[in-house]
C-alpha cells in the first residue's frame, strides 16, 4: 500500500515543477499576489512559508498514526498556527522592518492552503523523511514561483531587483506593475507561459518514440 505512493525523491522533484504549488496547483494565491511587488518581501515570505511548511509536515508526519480522521484538520491548523506565530515573532525580533512591511501577510500563512494541502496529501500518510522531502520540494517550487513573479514586477515596476537598480538610468517605472493589477497581469501571463512551455515540452517528448 505504501509502495505505490511517491518516494522521497519523487515528492521532492514533483514539488519544484511538475506539481508546482503556484503554477500547477494554483494554491496560495494570496501571498503570491500580495507580496510579490519586490524581491525582498517575496523572499522573506517564501522563507517564512518554507519554515512553516517543513516544520508542520514533519510534526504531522510524526504523529500521523495518532490522528483521528475527523479531527485531523484541527490538528493541522493547530500545528500550522503554532509555527506561523513563531515565524511572526522571530521576524519581528530579527527582521523588524521586513516584518512591518509584510504586516498581516505573515499571520495569514496560517490559512495558506499549500500547507494544509501538503499535510493532508503527504505528511498524514507518509514517513518523516518523505514528508520532509516533500515540504522542501514544495517550498522550493513556491520560492521559484514567487521569485519569478516578483522579478518581473520589481524590475518593471521599480527598475530594481532586491532593491538594487538594474535598469538603465532614466528607465520609466511601470507603476502599475507594483500595484495590485500588476500582480494579476503578471501571474496570468506567467501562468500562460508556463502552460505553453509545458505543452511544448510534452509534445517534444511525445515526438520521440523512446520516451513513451
Amino acid at each position, binding site marked *: 500500500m505504501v509502495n505505490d505512493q511517491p518516494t522521497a525523491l519523487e515528492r521532492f522533484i514533483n514539488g519544484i515543477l511538475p506539481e508546482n504549488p503556484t503554477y500547477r496547483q494554483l494554491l496560495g494565491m494570496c501571498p503570491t499576489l500580495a507580496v510579490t511587488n519586490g524581491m525582498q518581501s517575496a523572499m522573506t515570505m517564501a522563507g517564512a512559508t518554507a519554515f512553516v511548511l517543513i516544520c508542520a509536515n514533519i510534526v504531522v508526519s510524526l504523529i500521523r498514526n495518532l490522528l483521528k480522521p475527523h479531527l485531523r484538520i484541527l490538528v493541522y491548523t493547530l500545528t500550522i498556527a503554532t509555527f506561523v506565530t513563531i515565524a511572526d515573532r522571530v521576524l519581528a525580533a530579527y527582521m523588524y522592518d521586513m516584518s512591518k512591511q509584510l504586516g498581516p501577510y505573515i499571520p495569514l500563512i496560517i490559512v495558506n492552503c499549500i500547507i494544509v494541502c501538503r499535510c493532508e496529501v503527504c505528511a498524514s500518510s507518509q514517513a518523516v523523511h518523505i514528508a520532509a522531502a516533500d515540504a522542501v520540494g514544495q517550498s522550493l517550487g513556491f520560492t521559484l514561483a514567487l521569485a519569478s513573479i516578483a522579478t518581473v514586477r520589481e524590475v518593471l515596476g521599480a527598475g530594481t531587483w532586491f532593491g538594487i537598480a538594474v535598469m538603465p538610468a532614466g528607465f*520609466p*517605472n*511601470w*507603476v*502599475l506593475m507594483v*500595484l495590485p*493589477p500588476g500582480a494579476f*497581469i503578471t501571474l*496570468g501571463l506567467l501562468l500562460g507561459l508556463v502552460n505553453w512551455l509545458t505543452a511544448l515540452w510534452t509534445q517534444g517528448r511525445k515526438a520521440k518514440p523512446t520516451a513513451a
Partner: protein
Amino acid sequence: MVDKPKQDNEEAPKGSTAFLHVGSSPHLSNSRLTTQRMMIDVLIGLLPILVFAIVIFRWFAILQLGICTVSCIAFEALFSAWRGKPSPLWDMSATVTGVILGLSMPWSAPWYIGVIASGVAIGIGKIVYGGLGQNIFNPAMVGRAFVMISFPAAMGAAAYLDPDGTLKIVTQATPMSVARSSATPLWPLFLGTVNGSLGEVSTLAALIGGGYLCVRRSASYEIPVGILGTIFILGGIQNLLNPDSTFTVLHHLFGGPTMFGAFFIATDPVTSPVTRRGKWIYGVSIGLIIMLIRVFSGYPEGTMFAVLLMNGVVPLINRWAIPIPVGGPVPVRAQ
C-alpha cells in the same frame, strides 16, 4: 408555429430551392455589413478629428498617431502569428484601435508610452481573450488605462502643459484640469482650439464624425445620446444648484473627451450591449459615472474609467435587456 422553439437559424443549404427557408433573427440584411466595412466607416468618422488634431498639434499629433497605429498593427501581426492564427489585419480593427489610442494620448507622451499602450491594448486588451469579438474591455482604453496608471507624470494634467512650448496651444492648462477653479470660454472649447489629448479637443469635429457614424449605423445613436443626455441633465441640475459657477453644463458637454468618448469609444460594437434597451442602460450609466468621477473624485476626467467600468457589466446588461419577441416571451426550457 409559435410553440415550436426556433432552432433553424443556420443558412439555407445550397441547392435547396424547393423551400423558402426563413431563419429566426438576427437577419443579415446586407452582406456587405462586414467588420472591415464598419472599421473603415469608423476611420472615415475619425477623419475630421484627425484633421483637427493635426491642424492644432502639428507634428506632435502625426508622431503620436503614427507610433500608436504602427505599434498596434505590429503587435496584432506579432501576436496572431504567435498564436498560429491567420493575421486578421485586413479587418482594420488594429488600425482603429491604434488611431483611437493615439487620439487619446497627450501630445507630449514619450514614444515608449505609445508603444507600451499599444502592446497592452492589443495583447492584454484583446488577444488574451481570444481576439476581436471576444474581448470584454475596449482595447484602446485598456492600453490607455495601463499607461495612465503606470506613468502618471507623463499622462497626468502636467503632461499637457509646456509653458515654453513652440505651439501656443500647449502653454494653456487643459480645460478639465482647471475646471474647479476657472472656466474656458465656450466657443474655443466647441471649436477645439484648446489644450488636451489629441482627439478630445474639438467638439465640432467629434460631432461631424460621430454624426456620420450614426447615420451609417456603424455606431448606435442610443449610446452617445444616452451619455450626452445624462451629462446634460446632471450638469444642468448642478448648474441650477450653483448658478454662480462659471463651469456650466455646456462645459461638461464640450470639455474633455466627452464627445470623442461618447461617439467613438463607448460605441465599440464588441464591448457595448446588443439590444436597444441595453444600449440605453449602458449609455445612461456611462454618463452617470462620468459625472460622478468629475464632480466627486480626484481625477479631472473620467470618460475612460466610465467606459471601462461599464464594459465590465455589458454581459449582465445583455442578459437583462433581452427584448421580448413578437408573440410573447419564449418559454424557458429546462436545461
